[in-house]
């Protein structure tokens, strides 16, 4: 019976998908004449080699946990937030603008910036919800459009006089120190990592709050009910339209905070994008690996953060870091088709009994 439970657990198939992803990545590396052992060795060393590497991994993971939570929350409530990318970008831009323009005391300044970012993400997603509810426009389509509008809006704002830094090429001024989410100087020195920030703590708190909302509150119950069966929920007296809007709004706010964490914690400013940053799309992977469980997002976010941070060091051994994208793409595919494996394994399991 225990064996059957393992075979039914989705964690097993997620692990299988990750292993297959790495195997395919190894094949590509090998065919490019790069030893997979050396590359993966560097990847592991790049993450676990020194304590400060591990802290950097968490720094990389923080925005991803937020976009992961954003997508996971949307999936649990029956919509698909493929627009986390755009919400992340408007959140980052809002936080950046507030961080540059507003003059507030420390702590309060950072809190205001994060809240404004959450609001920006909320609105960006809510608009899509209104298009869906009022005009029946499929959210996936409007999200894609909104992603690109956000992309160009950000590039436009980066170059405006108020935000643009003289002679910096294509980036904004740095946000004021009072708006940064960095740990105090002493702790940064002790950790030997100048990017360590509160983002990861915020992400864990957010994950727990989301878990409570989804699993333990009436609101979560309503949202899930609408996601599960809209008509039945409506029949049961739940206002489905309002639930969809709430779900999308919360999901967008999470992605927006992710953007704030990235700007206020890590980068300190926004540069003009050449292509989409990808945090929103990476959030889809984080949510899928976590099986849309908010607590799971913490771990899958750290996993993805490790892949990104470790991956950025692959060039040192002559391996293109894009192998990470290939691995992650394959992981998504194999999670997406895991139900097939599940059926197959269960059938084999039954035969053996």
């Amino acid at each position, binding site marked *: 019976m225990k064996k059957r439970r393992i075979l039914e657990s989705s964690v097993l198939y997620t692990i299988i998908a990750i292993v297959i992803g790495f195997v395919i990545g190894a094949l590509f590396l090998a065919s490019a004449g790069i030893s997979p052992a050396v590359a993966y060795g560097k990847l592991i060393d790049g993450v676990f080699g020194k304590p400060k590497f591990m802290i950097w991994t968490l720094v990389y993971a923080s925005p991803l946990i937020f976009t992961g939570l954003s997508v996971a929350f949307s999936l649990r409530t029956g919509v698909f937030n493929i627009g986390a990318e755009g919400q992340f970008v408007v959140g980052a831009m809002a936080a950046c603008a507030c961080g540059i323009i507003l003059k507030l005391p420390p702590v309060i300044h950072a809190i205001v910036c994060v809240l404004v970012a959450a609001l920006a993400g909320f609105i960006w997603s809510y608009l899509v919800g209104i*298009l869906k509810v009022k005009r029946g426009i499929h959210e996936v389509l409007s999200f894609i459009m909104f992603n690109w509008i956000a992309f*160009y809006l950000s590039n*436009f704002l980066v170059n405006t006089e108020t935000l643009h830094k003289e002679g910096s090429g294509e980036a904004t001024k740095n946000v004021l120190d009072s708006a940064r989410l960095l740990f105090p100087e002493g702790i940064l020195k002790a950790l030997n990592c100048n990017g360590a920030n509160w983002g990861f703590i915020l992400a864990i708190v957010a994950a727990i709050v989301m878990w409570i909302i989804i699993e333990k509150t009436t609101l979560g119950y309503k949202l899930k009910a609408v996601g599960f069966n809209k008509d039945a929920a409506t029949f049961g007296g739940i206002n489905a339209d309002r639930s969809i809007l709430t779900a999308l709004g919360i999901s967008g706010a999470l992605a927006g905070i992710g953007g704030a964490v990235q700007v206020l914690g890590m980068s300190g400013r926004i540069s003009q994008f050449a292509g989409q940053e990808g945090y929103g799309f990476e959030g889809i992977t984080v949510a*899928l690996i976590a099986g849309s469980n908010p607590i799971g997002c913490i771990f899958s976010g750290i996993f993805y953060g490790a892949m990104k941070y470790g991956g950025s060091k692959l060039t040192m051994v002559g391996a293109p870091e894009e192998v990470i994208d290939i691995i992650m793409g394959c992981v*998504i595919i194999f999670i*997406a088709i895991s*139900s*097939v494996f599940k059926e197959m394994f269960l059938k084999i399991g039954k035969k053996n009994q």
Partner: protein
Amino acid sequence: MDAFISNLGLLINATLVATPPLLLAALGSCFSERSGVINLGIEGMMTIGAFVGAAVGLVVNNGWIAFLAGGLAGAVMAAIHAVVCIQFHADQTIAGTAMNFIGPGLALFLCKAIFGSTDTPPLSISDKLPKLFEGVFEAGSFLGNVLNVYTVAYLVFVFAAIAVFVFYKTKFGTHLRAVGEHPEACESLGISVYRVRYICVIISGFMAGLGGAFVTTATINQFRPSVIVGQGFIAIAAVIFGKFSPGGAAKACLLFGFCSGVKSILSMSSVVDPNLISMIPYIVTIVALVLFVGKAHTPAANGKPFVKSK
């Protein structure tokens, strides 16, 4: 007046350069969407096509072969998408997202592995796709700007006409539209839903690959990480804007190509920020959806995996 005509010429020229990649990808996407498979991975397939087109062009020194090679690369990726979505009933949006990781990732991976850089070396002019009236008209003249463009820029409109014909005048067209509406009925009539969908998805990848290859073997002369950025998504927008018909998609692509043309002309004069103009296709799509298309008919079985009854 002269300035007006010369600017008009430039604008038409810029439109004819910007439209082909979008239109190629959008025509392909029509096949896939109408047969009931969402292909959100168009962007990734265009990127891999762009790289393979540029890379093959360097080897064979022939623009046409490079162009087709880009198409084939897109088709191979689409075949994977097809297996995942059709055979294994995966969520099509998620599979498409995966394609958008793998396509650009693989293109850059190969580019770095083969050329040791994020850009391919530039193609010489003779290795690029040919222009229709090379040397016939004076460079920079109105006629030169309008007529002396890449042959493919005119060919895409022929492709659009062919696609319309296939859709509405052939048996295959009827089948593919029916399969996207009511696969169960089709299966009971002896039409293989899987076969039709496989063909359509692979066509969409092939066309997306061609679109990507056009960028690197005609518009510019090399592959760079930023060559495709968003064009695949504009193509998808065009398809929905054009109500999932090749004719409609062609009109939408012309409109978006025109926006892009306006952008490239205005960016020379810096009157309006080019970033604002870049938003136009996306905003137009939203507005159009709100005003007219919102209630338009999406293929009924779009996005729903079809499970064969045993």
